[in-house]
């Protein structure tokens, strides 16, 4: 039955090819945009999740200032964290290890080229090295980690080694950081985080001298003991530091963040942006729906005589309604299917472009659910747009309809 209606509908659409395609275009554009935005947004969320999962959920980040900016982010704030805070945190229940890092933007010279990059000054004791090597941002792939006794040695990020300078930086090459020569002893694995893939890591004592920072830290990476709840430990750290600084809750001049919070924080911002964009794209789907309604009305008017004929040979009003709902639905569905295809291409194109810019961790995430959902949705928009025209068709007076020339 439905198959027979389809044949009838299809033959009509074929006859009005240009108009059908223009109508389809209306839906196609909207669905393309929605598919591309959703798949890229999901891909971005997944990429961020993956990025941070390399850190591990048992890490807590403590930094000065009211807001967390990222593992090497710097804050414009007068508040400081120093060895006193480090000792405090080390004594909080559930804390296994605390690493204090000092980070600065610095001038890096290699060959004749000078660039700016983040320099992370990190302790070189074996416990710290072991912990850093377990975090994807600091894992060394080639060469070795800087260790105790190293003074002017450095580990460098993957992209810094490969792409930053015209000439690739190799192990044992010397690079100039703020006028001081360092020998490269290790190149980090690619982490997918542009900041970490473009940084330089040097021993903390050397860094303190180089930057003239005798006692401050830029951040602490806290490892939570196995079996302890990172959220509880983070709360305890916050309370301890607050008490020590005589601050009220909510007025902290430092921040304590869990890996999970960082992910969900970035994820929330992304989701809001994504929802706004999808909302805008959805408007174009609604406009497409109105286009379908318009076309279906025209089709009903044009097929008045045929509607009369169908009724004369025994079609019930219900049959007529179904026929025109299918017609409108097909316009939506074809638009949706093409939109899914085009949206996929668009998302993949963005993925490629991003990879060319170094963000090859971004993968467009197209789930079967998204594709099926888009198809069902666009068929629904089409069919819904067809309701009024279809009812008009069904209510037509047979005698009048059939006597149309």
């Amino acid at each position, binding site marked *: 039955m439905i198959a027979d209606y389809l044949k009838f509908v299809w033959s009509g659409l074929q006859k009005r090819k240009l108009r059908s395609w223009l109508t389809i275009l209306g839906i196609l554009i909207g669905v393309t945009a929605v598919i591309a935005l959703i798949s890229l947004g999901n891909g971005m969320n997944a990429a961020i999740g993956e990025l941070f999962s390399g850190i591990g959920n048992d890490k807590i980040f403590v930094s000065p200032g009211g807001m967390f900016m990222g593992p090497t982010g710097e804050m414009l704030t007068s508040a400081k964290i120093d060895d006193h805070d480090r000792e405090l945190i080390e004594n909080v229940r559930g804390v296994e290890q605390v690493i204090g890092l000092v980070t600065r933007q610095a001038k890096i010279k290699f060959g004749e080229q000078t660039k700016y990059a983040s320099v992370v000054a990190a302790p070189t004791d074996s416990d710290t090295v072991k912990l850093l090597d377990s975090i994807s941002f600091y894992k060394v792939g080639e060469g070795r980690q800087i260790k105790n006794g190293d003074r002017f040695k450095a580990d460098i990020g993957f992209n810094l080694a490969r792409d930053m300078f015209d000439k690739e930086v190799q192990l044992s090459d010397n690079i100039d950081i703020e006028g001081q020569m360092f020998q490269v002893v290790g190149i980090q694995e690619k982490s997918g985080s542009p900041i970490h893939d473009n940084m330089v890591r040097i021993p903390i004592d050397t860094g303190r001298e180089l930057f003239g920072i005798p006692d401050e830290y830029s951040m602490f990476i806290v490892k939570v003991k196995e079996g302890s709840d990172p959220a509880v430990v983070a709360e305890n750290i916050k309370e301890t530091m607050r008490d020590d600084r005589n601050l009220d809750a909510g007025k902290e001049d430092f921040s304590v963040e869990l890996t999970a919070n960082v992910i969900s924080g970035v994820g929330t911002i992304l989701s809001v942006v994504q929802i706004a964009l999808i909302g805008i794209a959805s408007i174009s789907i609604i406009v497409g729906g109105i286009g379908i309604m318009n076309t279906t009305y025209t089709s009903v008017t044009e097929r008045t005589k045929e509607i009369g004929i169908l009724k004369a040979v025994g079609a*019930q009003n219900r049959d007529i309604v179904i026929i025109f709902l299918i017609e409108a639905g097909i316009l939506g569905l074809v638009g949706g299917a093409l939109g899914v295809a085009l949206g996929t291409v668009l998302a993949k194109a963005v993925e490629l472009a991003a990879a060319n810019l170094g963000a090859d961790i971004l993968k467009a995430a197209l789930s079967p659910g998204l594709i099926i959902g888009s198809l069902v949705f666009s068929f629904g928009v089409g069919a819904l747009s067809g309701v009024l025209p279809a009812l008009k068709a069904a209510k037509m007076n047979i005698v009048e309809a059939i006597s149309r020339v």
Partner: protein
Amino acid sequence: MLEPVIELKNVWKIYEMDKVKVTALEDVSLKIYKGDFICIIGPSGSGKSTLMHIMGTLDRPTKGKMILNNKDISSYSESELAQVRGKEIGFVFQQFNLIPTLTASENVELPMIFQNIPGDERKKKAKDLLNQVGLSHRMEHLPNEMSGGERQRVAIARALANDPLVVFADEPTGNLDSKTGKEIMLLLSHLSEKHGKTLVIVTHDSDLAEGIDKKIRIKDGRIVEVTRDGKTEVTR
């Protein structure tokens, strides 16, 4: 005593157009029996088409009763009427009224679709009927690839698709040349007789009515004369 297939009892049809009432049918009563070959004759505007529309369930009387196969269908709902129409009535129109985007065979299948007849059975029946109207070579052709006479043959095949009680033909030769018109009339009467159908022809053309055993003459919305085998039965 023969039971009538169609019986009209005091049927009125009044159209209201911009507050002006136009009486298309005025107190019409008639009976049509199974196997009848009837011609309804009248000039244009006489109400003959309205009469056919009401008997064919395409329209409802304003007043009076329409009885089809012993059932009073005056009070039927629209969907009930559609079902009855699809099953018991076949139409042949002056304008052929085929669906232009469907092939001859698909056009013949159309009434069967709405009776939920399975596809293979429909195809077989359509093939058989197109064979009977001499169009076995035109099965997959679209209407605009066929001559007027051929299109009307497709329409005749379509009218017989659901094996209806009554076939109505509204000026079936009106768009055809006289030779083709005669062929179509012959085919209509031949097939109706062969399948035992009641056939009602509506026309303004007295020549066409010649040789038809029963004639109903209508004028100004009233039946003015009923003739059977040359004998006038009713006059008013």
